Structures are given as C-alpha cells and as structure tokens.
C-alpha cells in the first residue's frame, strides 16, 4: 500500500512540498531557505495553477 501511495505523482508532490515548506519555515540557514523557496513556489504554482 505504501508503495502504491508513493507511486502516485500527487502523493510524491505533497510529501516533497511539505518537506520544502518545513525547511523554508523552520531553517535558520538563509541558503536552505532560499533553495526551499526557489523550488517550492514554482512547484506550487505548477500544481495549483497550470493545467
């Protein structure tokens, strides 16, 4: 079941997205935060807006 869930594009996107959000919000290292923002924001826009 876990493999099946992981297989899903949306599940993977959600897990990566939450990981990046956590990194952005809790990290004290500006480089980690910058990287998280630059990956997370375009990814969110792609998933939410671009059909």
């Amino acid at each position: 079941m876990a493999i099946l869930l992981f297989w899903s594009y949306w599940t993977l996107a959600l897990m990566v997205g939450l990981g990046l959000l956590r990194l952005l919000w809790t990290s004290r290292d500006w480089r980690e935060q910058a990287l998280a923002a630059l990956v997370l924001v375009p990814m969110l826009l792609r998933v939410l807006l671009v059909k």
Partner: protein
Amino acid sequence: MKGAASLSPLRSSRMRALCFGLLALTLAWVAGRDFLAQREVEELVPSPGLTQRRWLSEWHAPLKGGRGDSEVFVFRGQAPGGRVLVLGGTHPNEPAGYLAAVLLVENLQVEAGEVWVLPRANASAFTATDPQEGTPQCLVLPAADGSARAFRVGGRATNPLDQWPDPEITVHRPSLQTLSGVEVRNLNRSYPGRPDGVFTEQVAFAIRQLVEREGVDLLVDLHEAAIEYPVVNALVAHERAGDLAAAAVFGLSMAGVDIALEPSPANLHGLSHRELGDARPALLATLLETANPGQGRLRGRTDAAQLLLGQDPCYTAAQGIPGMNKVKVDSLGLPMTLRVGRHLEAVRELCVAMEVVAPDKVVRYAGPPSLMELQTAGLSPWLRPLPR
C-alpha cells in the same frame, strides 16, 4: 528577557522565509508569463475564398475545448471536384510545413473541388519546444503592410503537460510495432489512432475520422527533415498514390524543382501516408519533406535567423565530408522562401496531377505564390495583416 532574546532569531528567520517566498513568486511570475505565452495560439487571417471554419473536435468530440483541438479551414470551389486535405504542423519544429499551410489559408481561391487545410495538426506540440534543442519559440515576419506577424515554433511531439509519462517502449496499435518511448507523443507515429487511446492517438483518430467521414481524395502532409536524413527533398507516397506522385514529380522537375519520389514503407507503421492510405481505399496519401538546416545534429546555433535564412556554417563545412549532407548546403543556405515555395509548388503539382489520374476529382485553385515569386519577393506579400 531570556524568552524574548530566543524569539528574535526565529522571527527574523521567518521574515527571511517570507522575503524569499516573495522573491521566488516574483521570479516565477516573470518566467511564468513566458511559459504561458507559449500556449497563445496566433491568429491566422484566411483569404476571402474561405467557405467554412471548422474544428477538429467535430470528428472526435473529446478533443473539444482542449489543446488537441485545432482549426480546419475549408475552401470550396464553384465547380465540383475532388477533396484535398493539407496537414501543416504535424511537427511544429518543422516551420516550413506550417508556414506553407498558413500561406494556403491566407491566399487560397479555389475554383474547382475543395481544399481543406489543417495548419496546426498537432496543436499541443505548438505549446512547447523540445528540451535541449535551443530552438526559438517563434518566428516574426513582416506582413504585407509591414506589421509584424509572429508564428510559433513548437516541438516535434505533443507537450508532455498534455500527455505524460512516456513509456519505456511505445507499442503502436494495432500493428504492435515497437518504437522508442518518446514516439508515443509523435503524431506521425500515432495513426490510425484510437478513440480511447492516449492524447496523441486521439488527435490522430480525429484526423482519420475527418479523412474517412468527409471522403478526402488526396492527403498532403507537410514536413521538414534534417540535412543528413536520407528522405529529404522528397515526396513520399502510398503505393496507390504512386502514379499521382510520379506525375507530380515530373511536373516539378519540369519547373526546375528537384524532388525524389519515395515509396511509403509498408512495414513502418503509424505514419500518415501509410495508415490513412490503408484506412481509406479511395485516398491518395502523400507526404512532403524539405531540407531544414535548423533540425539536424550537426547544426550550430539555432535561432530565428538561422531558421529563416537556412544558413548554417556547420552544414556548409560538412559539405566537404562525402555522403554527410544529403542536400547541398552552401553559404547561400536553404532559406524559408525556398522551403515554403517547394511545398507550395508540390501541392499545386499534386492537384494538377489529380486531373490526370482521377479526372472526376479535379482540384483547381489560384492565390498562393509560386516558388519564383517567393524567392523574388519573400513571404511578406502573402501574409495578411492582422485585423486591428
């Protein structure tokens, strides 16, 4: 005091997170505008001879409103005759095929029979260029009044946003022939198509339905190919269209246009001339290839000037390697006017040859420029200005 002191770095890191988030949003907005602009479909200005404007989804309803749907321009003559379907933009990275179809749409005056033009056969493939190819997103040309007209250059295959993921191996239906995975998005490997197949198969199915239900007599699929590709400057014909194609090649030779006649391979499935020719026994199915220096592996910098002028120092240098270039590429290059002109001359000769091969299926028209006119005056006089 101790609590307030420990809160401050956290607060500043969250402020930083918000700033980075806003910065990323700004960057994504700027880049996203370019990205989404690729989906804007440029307007074509049909000639006054246009009879009807239809949509591909009329032959396969699930395409309606989606990015597989595409305009079909119908031109009917006063006198009865045959029905020709011209496909442009099967591969939007082959711009002469698309621009030749555009010039037909904007200039046709059909006298006998009917000419149907589908200038963006794979509309989805116009919305993205191929990765790592460095092709420009559009070509800007002056129209007859000097105003700018932009024509999109796309990729070879359907946009992956419309059909994803690619399989490891593409299995063509119904032949079960295997091809590389990416060919699953290639319209010219997807015929005859399936109504419940993947996106590209559905587009192919719609075109097949158009051909069968409307009783198309002659199909001309406009393409370009790399200089080192063996089938270049060629007319490919289904075996039933052999006589027609031979007559057209003869006519083209008389007009000074050298072109090879290639039989459609019976064992290579998925191609328009093979599958549509097999699907409709009354159809004479053909495909045209011109030589495009902006496509092959040997080419140098690929930009709008290179695509329009057809000049490439790498191919000119390769001229010295025996057998490398299948078409001569000198410093004058193979300009767009030559490539579009070859297509238009070949379509005209195929229609002339119809009168010989099938006299009741005559198709006669005026309007589109000849090769000589294009080489003298360029494309602009035949591009109508956009309505204001």
